């Protein structure tokens, strides 16, 4: 299997994640698109781990997953807190700092 196939798939996943972040207004969907981008990066890590025959790439994926889990816990807690005060998680509504 050529290396380019995996890189192309990862690039497509990453771009779909970017478009999701830019297009959607629901903060939860924006968050899920972030996870999709994490996933694309992880796929690259594993691909190059296999390509160079080393395990360091897989260790990196393990750490990325751990940090992503921590980030999701804090992010969702933030979203619950925002929903309590503003009764919405639409990112367009979060404009209190605008002058």
């Amino acid at each position, binding site marked *: *299997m*050529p*290396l*380019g*196939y*995996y*890189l192309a*798939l990862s*690039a*497509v*996943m990453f*771009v*779909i*994640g*970017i*478009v*999701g972040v*830019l*297009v*959607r*207004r*629901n903060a*939860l*969907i924006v*968050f*899920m*698109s972030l*996870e*999709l981008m994490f*996933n694309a990066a*992880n*796929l690259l890590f*594993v*691909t190059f*781990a*296999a*390509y160079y*025959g080393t*395990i360091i790439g*897989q*260790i990196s*994926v*393990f*750490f990325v*997953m*751990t*940090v*992503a*889990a*921590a*980030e999701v*816990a*804090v992010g*969702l*807690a933030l*979203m*619950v807190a925002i*929903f309590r005060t503003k009764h919405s*998680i*639409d990112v367009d509504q979060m404009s209190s700092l605008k002058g």
Partner: protein
Amino acid sequence: MLPGEILFGFIGLVVVITAVGMVISRNAIYSALFLVSNFTTVALLYLILGAPFIAVVQISVYAGSIMVLFLFVIMLLGAERLAAKEKLQGQRLLAVILGVVFLVELGLFGVWKAGYMTTPVPPAAATAGAPEAVGMALFTQYALPFEVTGFILLVATVGAILLTRGDKPASKDLITAVSEKEG
């Protein structure tokens, strides 16, 4: 066509379709379910690439716990459906155009490095990504980062509890109760 390429094509198609479905579906629960199937399919790719440990962690941590947390919050907030009103006119179109431009840039890079791109990924050795090898590397060479991730998880747990606790006077009551008990 080799059987491996047909398999890769099928998996890649499922990955892209579920990713697009996650972005465009109106209902947030459907988005979460699309993302679960996306993660599971990517785990299959990890298996093909000789990383069984990472594949299992992907399914159990990502498709399991993280997405359950997402679904829990979606249902808790009742935020399945939001109004599809667009405030900034043309922003959606611009976002898609910029995404396509970025993809074309990546594709041009691939064309530029065409010789590099066509080198095959070698078939994985049977023991390359086995749990023994990963565990050995984690607990010897990467012991310090491993400890640090444990600390990060602790900080995230404390932070999540603090953020969701709210400003109830319950904490004050607890402090006075403890001080009264001690005093």
